[in-house]
């Protein structure tokens, strides 16, 4: 575009139309990536910290549940065998998640907590990479030892061919205690969340 420069000598300036075109194009691309992540087609790639975390809940009930074995790699390069739990949609009561963080100032515990008396938390497309799970289970339409690659209860989540797989259409679990390497959720909605970090903060279990 030609000059609408101020004054006699044209000064350095921004061509705002170019600025807008470049910024719009790149932000649109960002939007596409965000949509892809939300829909789960593009995995949010975060590497795992070198520490596992604890997740607990009083009660989880929902639809579409599969489990299969996998391996995750943490930031320090170590590989950890895990059980992947994928859930299509669920309501969670009393969700709690904590992680102990060693810092130069000592050991801090970070805890995200939805008190049990508050309304339940809705999650969709939940993936948990767990190492140990303790829970009381109630499954419906259960299929054990189904080939992990054929699991179809949760869109986008399948294991490797030949591996053990578990599928259930409906499920309810109580007093869940999970040690986990990662928790990824397509969406998580709840009210009354409390997040705290402190040296005296208790862990979930």
């Amino acid at each position, binding site marked *: 575009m030609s000059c609408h420069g101020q004054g006699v*000598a044209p000064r350095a300036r921004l061509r705002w139309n170019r*600025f807008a075109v470049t910024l719009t194009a790149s*932000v649109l691309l*960002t939007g596409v990536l965000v949509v892809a992540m939300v829909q789960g087609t593009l995995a949010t790639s975060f590497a*795992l910290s070198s520490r596992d975390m604890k997740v607990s809940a009083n009660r989880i009930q929902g639809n579409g549940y599969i489990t299969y074995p996998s391996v995750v790699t943490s930031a320090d390069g170590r590989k950890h065998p895990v059980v992947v739990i994928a859930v299509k949609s669920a309501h969670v009561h009393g969700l709690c998640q904590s992680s102990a963080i060693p810092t130069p100032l000592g050991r801090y515990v970070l805890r995200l907590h939805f008190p049990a008396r508050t309304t339940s938390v809705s999650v969709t497309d939940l993936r948990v990479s767990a190492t140990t799970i303790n829970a009381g289970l109630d499954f419906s339409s259960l299929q054990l030892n189904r080939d992990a690659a054929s699991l179809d209860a949760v869109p986008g989540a399948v294991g490797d061919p030949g591996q053990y797989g578990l599928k259930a259409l409906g499920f309810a679990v109580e007093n869940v205690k999970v040690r986990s390497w990662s928790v990824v959720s397509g969406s998580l909605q709840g009210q009354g969340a409390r997040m705290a*970090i402190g040296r005296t903060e208790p862990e979930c279990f």
Partner: protein
Amino acid sequence: MTRTLPHRFHTWRHRRPFGAGLLTALAGAEILLAPVIGVGLIINTGLAGTSGFLLGIVLIGLGLVFWTAPAHRTLTAVFTIAIAFAAFLTTNLGGFLIGHLLALAGAAAGIAWTPATDTEDAAPRQV
């Protein structure tokens, strides 16, 4: 050529895409610091430590390149956009989107910047 310091800074600033460099360097700093300031949010994003550190440093470097090599601003901007998306994908969404968007704005400002025609490092005026 003895002039006041503010005036010399003013001249220096107008001979290069100052805002572009500033935004890009800020983006790098934000991505670097995101794990420190937002410790509550990065609970399971530990990797971001490594790649966030590298990409943050690179973005700060690109900000300095905007200042020191105004002639290469378009190439610098392209690199900045590429790094911004790399950071978005690998490090906490590029510092929780803030750093990512700052870097994109910096790159756009770098592409949009046009030097004054009366300075010796001015590019031929395009229409």
